[in-house]
């Protein structure tokens, strides 16, 4: 588990490992409103992203998630002012309260904003923001296309479809731009609703043409090839998949609803998931597809997943023993606790920033065209 003495060769850590790590961190903060813990988790995520993100365009997306998180905190504060429960002591913003009829009792519009309530709302917002930052960290660390590539055989065709869809969007934007420019050549610069059919028609035709060409190319390259599968096996696959889905649904209901008997909860859910996995495995056998240079799963991946899990477990342990330490004392307001176990767990989640292999250097881009030299004259 421990990092080797010589630094490991640069390579991309398996995308699934990053996702599991991020989910562990997100699970850890999901029950926490203690700002010390939340900000620690946020710093941990940022640290790992900064030190281990690759060079793909996705890797730059973490900043966007941070903005989104900030936006969420802001919205949460505004909603608190509008309809939130305003409890606690010092009034920091006196506002008139709008009275609602008795059938809407329990909802407060406006009213004095009080510090305790506002702090409560902000920490709730921060919790959501940090969870989103965790997902953002996974997205920047793990190339989603590579994640799709490591899907099991039965789902690989969906993966291909998703990859194609992702590449369609920029093409669509490109053809809209091109058609808009072409329209100006006919002296037609009308904007608004009248212009829609004139732009949409050529763009649609273009998109359809491209899709047909792509479908034809994929077909001739073997997309959708199947092995011969015995009818019995096919039926078994279908039964496993459907049964697994059904059992998962029942099991989820059982877990969420406290009035159902215990056996309907976790056991049925586990059986459902197991059946679904079996179905996927059986279905994958009908698909001959293999993966080129699959991402390996080695010690670094285990370490990454383990660190994420450690954070989740540590926070869960604190929750069992001293749940109040995970929150902020609101009534009255006080300094939140510093639960050392939970902090240690979150700090362990930062270890992948130092112990996993570094990401590979950026791929060489196509040779950039050099600026012309004035003396480069035609013979």
């Amino acid at each position: 588990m421990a990092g080797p003495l010589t630094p490991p060769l640069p390579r991309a850590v398996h995308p699934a490992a990053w996702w599991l790590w991020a989910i562990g961190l997100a699970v850890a903060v999901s029950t926490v409103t203690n700002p010390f813990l939340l900000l620690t988790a946020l710093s941990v995520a940022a640290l790992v992203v900064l030190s281990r993100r690759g060079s793909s365009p996705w890797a730059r997306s973490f900043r966007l998630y941070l903005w989104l998180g900030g936006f969420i905190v802001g919205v949460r504060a505004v909603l608190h002012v509008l309809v939130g429960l305003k409890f606690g002591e010092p009034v920091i913003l006196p506002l008139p309260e709008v009275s609602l009829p008795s059938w809407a009792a329990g909802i407060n519009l406006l009213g004095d904003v009080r510090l305790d309530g506002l702090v409560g709302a902000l920490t709730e917002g921060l919790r959501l923001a940090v969870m989103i930052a965790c997902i953002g960290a996974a997205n920047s660390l793990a190339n989603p296309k590579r994640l799709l590539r490591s899907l099991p055989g039965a789902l690989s065709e969906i993966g291909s479809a998703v990859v194609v869809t992702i590449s369609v969007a920029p093409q669509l934007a490109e053809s809209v731009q091109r058609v808009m420019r072409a329209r100006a050549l006919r002296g037609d610069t009308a904007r608004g609703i009248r212009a829609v059919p004139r732009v949409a028609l050529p763009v649609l035709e273009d998109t359809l043409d491209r899709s047909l060409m792509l479908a034809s190319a994929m077909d001739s390259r073997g997309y959708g090839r199947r092995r011969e599968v015995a009818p019995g096996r096919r039926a078994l696959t279908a039964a496993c998949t459907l049964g697994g889905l059904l059992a998962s649904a029942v099991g989820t209901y059982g877990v969420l609803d406290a009035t159902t008997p215990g056996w309907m909860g976790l056991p049925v859910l586990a059986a459902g998931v197991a059946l679904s996995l079996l179905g996927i495995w059986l279905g994958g056998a009908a698909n001959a597809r293999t993966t080129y240079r699959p991402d390996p799963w080695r010690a670094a991946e285990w370490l990454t997943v383990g660190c994420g899990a450690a954070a989740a477990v540590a926070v869960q342990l604190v929750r069992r023993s001293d749940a109040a330490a995970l929150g902020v004392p609101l009534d009255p307001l006080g300094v939140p606790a510093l639960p050392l176990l939970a902090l240690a767990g979150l700090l362990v989640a930062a270890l992948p920033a130092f112990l996993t292999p570094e990401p590979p250097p950026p791929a060489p881009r196509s040779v950039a065209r050099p600026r012309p030299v004035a003396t480069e004259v035609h013979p």
Partner: protein
Amino acid sequence: MIELDRVSVSFEGATEPVLRDVSLRVDEGELALVVGRTGSGKSTLLGAITGHVPHFTGGTLAGSVRVAGRDTREHRPRDLADVVGVVGQDPLAGFVTDTVEEELAYGMEQLGLGASTMRKRVEETLDVLGIADLRGAALRELSGGQQQRVAIGSVLTTHPKVIVLDEPTSALDPTGAEDVLATITRLVHDLAVTVVVAEHRIERVLQYADTLVHVGAHGVVTQGDPAQVMLTADVAPPVVELGRWAGWSPLPLSVRDARRRAAPWRSLPTAPRPPVAAPGHALLDARRVTVTHGTVVAVAEVDLSLRAGEVTALMGRNGAGKSSLLWALQGSGPMRSGSVRRRHGTTSDATDVRALDAAERRRHVGLVPQSAADLLYLDTVGAECAQADRESGRDPGTCRSLLDDLAPGIPDDRHPRDLSEGQRLAVVLAVQLTADPPVLLLDEPTRGLDYAGKAALRRALRRLVERGRSVVVSTHDVEFVAESADRVVVMAAGEVVADGPTADVVVASPAFAPQVAKITSPQPWLTVDDVRYAVGEPS
């Protein structure tokens, strides 16, 4: 390897079959060149070989097609993926992944090859195609020639017995096309792959072809020795035309063979250059035009003056800034600095083209963009023409009569998408000419045109300049330039590197010299007509 036995293909609603009673045979390791006029059914023939006809396109196929012993009746294209590789016209449209290495591996992944085999073959293919340094590059950032080579590589990795290429060089500049064609011939020579290639620039591949398949009118297909079939084919490159006129037998297919036959002409006293017609007055003056896209400088301080009665050819590599310059000259495209002024007669007053609004601007400078069909958005040719008359404020019927001059016989109720490439170009040209601009710019108009289509375009442009207009054509097609341009402007990396009469610029350049010039050099002839005029009677 490929056997077609009395194959007929017809599509629903068509009055006659696209292919009629085709029987042909291509043996292992042969290079078969498929030629024919645009719309003659070349693509349908290729589709029949790959199984796309009728599995993907619909239609009815009679007879039998066998590829490597597999009948396409029972095998869909995906079932043939391990024996047939297909490369299309637009490589980017066929890419499934986004980096070179993954694209090369995609086909093998679908076939379920082992990890070590895949790894080995990807490396081999990178070497065969000479693109090893691009392995991690994003496909969209490659040049056209590199993209097409990756597309070929991506079908090569599955070690197919047959590779079918449908006009693989039509989107490429001369250098890119050379690279791709060199790759194709190397496949045939070194790897013993059977290659079927449809190509409209026959002159480039003809000399390497083992067998020639000619798709003629009414779906009649003939197969035979290239020199034999070329004698009567309805498409012919200049070298073949020259050979036919001179009565050389056997017909030379390469410049090298023709050069040996043309030795007597070279020893003729060097004919004086035909006098260059005095150019008219300037119609458009561009000064220090600079266009940037982000940080990339597309056009760098270009000065250009377009004169009446002159066809100017704009040449240069893909990405040299030709399109950006044309859009800037028209006034619709971005321009960072510089000025474009339209001169009125010989007087000094001028209009700043870029200050006009779009409707007014097209009366001064017309532009036919690279994807000409973008201009068409109505559902019949008649409606497009009527709309063009309205836009330009001309009498109804102006556009229609222009269209009849350019390409007679296009019915009014035809949908623009159902037209052939040449007909669609004619419609767009007619729409833009309705405004009667003194300056007309065309961006890559020869793409997808066969020899007859190019000749029709050449005549139309010639009529325009005779009426005192100025025409700029950006193109990669050196033969078209040799036959139609009075002046050639060569761009490289955003700058004009050569500007002069066609004969001066083109003959001197190894990349841009037309076949006739290569055959008859040091004589100053560029086209078969020049030779006919100078030599008089074939020896």
